[in-house]
């Protein structure tokens, strides 16, 4: 597997898109017609709001309109790191990505150059995945589970240039 293809924004965003992207990362209305509520706030129509969100989603600029869950509420997850010889990086990244329990897998600029997140039903299944990756790659996996979450900010402030 090679690195995932990215689609990078190649057009200016219009005013409605900007407001939807920036102002509604949190506090999505819990009203029977939330897109109507948003439309009233931004001076648009329910249909335009829904259509724009669908477009942003199909253009992969948003992944969803929905919930972000607290980490580790149920089940187990961890951040794992490996030191992989450069010439084996793609091969080992492939092994790691082949697990359904792995949802992020990145090359990073460090002696420990492969970093991935594993989530599973419980700690035992998680350990099993880590052990299998070690066995398949012949390399050590460093397991760095979250101990405490300090994140307070909600959403991600976008700056338009």
């Amino acid at each position, binding site marked *: 597997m090679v690195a995932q293809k990215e689609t990078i924004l190649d057009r200016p965003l219009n005013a409605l898109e900007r407001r939807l992207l920036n102002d509604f990362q*949190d506090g*999505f209305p819990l009203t029977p017609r939330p897109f109507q509520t948003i439309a009233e706030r931004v001076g648009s129509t329910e249909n335009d709001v829904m259509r724009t969100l669908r477009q942003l989603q199909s253009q992969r600029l948003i992944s969803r309109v929905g919930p972000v*869950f607290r*980490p580790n509420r*149920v089940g187990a997850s961890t951040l794992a790191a490996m030191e992989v010889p450069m010439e084996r990086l793609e091969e080992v990244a492939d092994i790691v990505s082949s697990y359904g329990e792995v949802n992020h897998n990145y090359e990073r600029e460090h002696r420990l150059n492969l970093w991935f997140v594993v989530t599973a039903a419980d700690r035992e299944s998680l350990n099993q995945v880590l052990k299998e990756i070690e066995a398949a790659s012949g390399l050590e996996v460093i397991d760095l589970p979250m101990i405490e979450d*300090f994140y*307070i900010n909600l959403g991600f402030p976008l700056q338009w240039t």
Partner: protein
Amino acid sequence: MDLRELSQLLEPDPMDLELVRVIQGGLPLVAHPYASIAGELGITEAEVMRRLERLLETGDIRRLGVVVRHRELGYRANAMVVWDVPDERVSEIGRLLGRQSCVTLCYRRPRRSGRWPYNLFCMIHGRDREGVLRNLDQLIDSCNLGWIERDVLFSLRQFKQRGAKYISERDGSTQQDRSITLGAS
């Protein structure tokens, strides 16, 4: 003990888990999304909204809204900044970092003797490498963090990235073999 702490000790309500399963991939982009979810779950629209409100109050849902894709929006650089903070100060400094607007995640993790010395992790996004480093410099300056040993790990290739599947249903699954996890990392 507040509601948030209390909820972490309780087993999740089965209907809440059903609700999570139905909405984890996003709300339907239709005029009455909560009614549509309610139909799927066999409960009322009002109950869907009440349960979501409650999950937001307890913090089990951290936020509800538009989840943007940073890279695709032009925020191509992201750095994991890791710090070696004396254990007795890690919570204080973690909370301080977690409040900064350029920080999108902030976690305490274990050190691993001889292999990994850092116990505090935060993620900083930016349009490019320089932007990330500028944000980091400002952060170090304004929070007075210059004395803490740190390292900056920029991301290079992205081999896999997808929203965590919190509840996956395997073929012919029953309640028992359904694997359930909430949240990433």
